[in-house]
């Protein structure tokens, strides 16, 4: 099969007169791959997730499941798509019906699918809890009786109950403590190896992207700024916005970046959308919007990308010109 599992092709999304996402294209291949969508609040990343789940209709462009546009899917294919692509959202407690027990929440997903006989549901639910590292004794609890980390595991267990091939993870750990986040990331890595499922990870935190995703897309105000292999775009960002995101990740012993760079200025009428926050803006950036271009194995929308990568390459010395810099 050559068509990607899920693909967005020049998708434009809008709420009323406000365009949130503009001509965005991205593909998620079949298999245990990780694709990341990175951006700040308001960048349109959750709207893209909703479009990929078929919950909002694109203003222009198409979302396709195995090569076929969502509106053209027949009943059977639609069911397959709904089963194959499962969402996991940020707030575990909002995704779970507060009046149902854990057993009912997960059991419902299993029986709706029609593949599990009622008599065996209880045992299957217990197994699915154990698969996400929860005690089967939690089956009789309701969501408010669980911790944030436990709830997020229940959401995962329910998504996994229908044997999906792709999980759309929208900020799956940002409401959690770092220690709990670390354990959930371990679990996601382990589940991918065991079940061969793929992930689309949506987040503003670059630090968790590297662990799960081999490909990353950086989104700013609904437009892709840079996309390519995670390792190379994070180590040698060609776009100043990627560099800003990377340098903002808190790390032990590194001083925070100086204030001022996220000045809240309304969107640029013309030119590069990032111009007001860009540390290396030039005249051309104000006049002309940079097109997405292919440079050094990635896609970048910046007038100065070649210059930036060239300078880094020279600084790295001639020997390892195109190799990853040793860090």
């Amino acid at each position, binding site marked *: 099969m050559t068509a990607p599992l899920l693909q967005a092709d020049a998708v434009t999304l809008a709420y009323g007169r406000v365009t949130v996402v503009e001509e965005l294209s991205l593909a998620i291949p079949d298999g245990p791959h990780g694709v990341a969508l990175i951006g700040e609040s308001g960048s349109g990343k959750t709207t893209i997730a909703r479009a990929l789940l078929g919950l909002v209709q694109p203003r222009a462009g198409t979302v396709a499941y195995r090569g076929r546009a969502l509106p053209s899917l027949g009943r059977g294919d639609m069911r397959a798509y709904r089963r194959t692509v499962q969402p996991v959202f940020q707030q575990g407690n909002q995704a779970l019906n507060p009046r149902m027990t854990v057993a009912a929440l997960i059991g419902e997903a299993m029986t709706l699918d029609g593949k599990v006989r009622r008599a065996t549901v209880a045992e299957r639910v217990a197994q699915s809890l154990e698969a996400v590292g929860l005690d089967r004794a939690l089956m009789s609890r309701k969501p408010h009786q669980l911790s944030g980390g436990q709830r997020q595991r229940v959401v995962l267990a329910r998504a996994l109950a229908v044997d999906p091939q792709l999980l759309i993870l929208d900020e799956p750990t940002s409401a959690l403590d*770092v220690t709990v986040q670390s354990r959930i990331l371990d679990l996601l890595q382990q589940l991918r190896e065991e079940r061969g499922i793929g992930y689309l990870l949506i987040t503003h935190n670059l630090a968790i992207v590297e662990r799960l995703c081999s490909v990353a897309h950086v989104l700013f105000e609904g437009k892709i700024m840079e996309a390519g292999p995670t390792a190379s775009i994070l180590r040698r960002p060609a776009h100043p916005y990627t560099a800003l995101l990377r340098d903002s*990740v808190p790390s*032990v012993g590194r001083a925070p970046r100086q204030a001022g760079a*996220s000045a809240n200025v309304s969107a640029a009428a013309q030119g590069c959308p990032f111009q007001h926050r860009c540390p290396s803006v030039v005249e051309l950036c104000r006049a002309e919007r940079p097109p997405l271009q292919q440079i050094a194995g990635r896609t970048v929308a910046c007038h100065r990308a070649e210059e930036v990568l060239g300078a880094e390459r020279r600084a790295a010395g001639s020997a390892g010109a195109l190799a990853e810099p040793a860090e």
Partner: protein
Amino acid sequence: MVSDAHPVEVEQLVVSVRDRCVSSLPELVVERGACVALVGESGSGKSSALLAILGLAASMGARAEGRIRLFGVDVLRASSRELRRIRGLRAAFVAQTPQGSLNPTMRLGALAKRSLALHGIAGADAEARTREAMSGVLLPLQILDRYPHQISGGQAQRFAIALALALGAELIVADEPTSALDVTVQSEILALLLRLRETKQLSLLLVSHDLAVVSTLADRIVVMKEGAVVESSPAAELFVNPACDYTRELIDAVPAFGT
């Protein structure tokens, strides 16, 4: 008021809810211009300790015992009037999501005016203080014409800090001040706090679940677990040579990045 007393001095603090201890803090001192961070997971008792230090234990249905002094004033024995004066003018609280504590029906300018008036600062003095504080946190004055829902989370957090500065706070007590923000904005708020500490000799008492966030800000880090202190070390030492396994676990939980 004793002027040379430390901003925060705590001894043998025990916070309990219905006779169950939820947080205990044997000793804590925040000196002038210093930054101390309480770090731990949800449920470790760090926020309870923080609220108790501000004399707010009763507001969460808890009881505080021990000795707490804010700028030399005995928090557990002070009158509510005395406490209000300290909390407004010298020790300011910055919440995780400040938008929740800003009246949605008032413009920020009116909010600032009212906060200052409550503490007896009015007229030209109030305006001058507000202007200076806004520039101190790098917010344009036009923001004062906006309503709370018209500003971003980062701007709201800056405004909360500006209010504290306008009132003349010498100590900022903040509970997870950046965990609801984007990483880029978080980094700016941390840089702002660091700068205020250096330029205004501001003292900071922070609570966070993320060691990386407080690592560059704090001189001393107090690690809490299940209501008790498991380690209290100078920040520089804690990262190099953690005294207990739990601290090591917290350090390891910080996502490794770019290495």
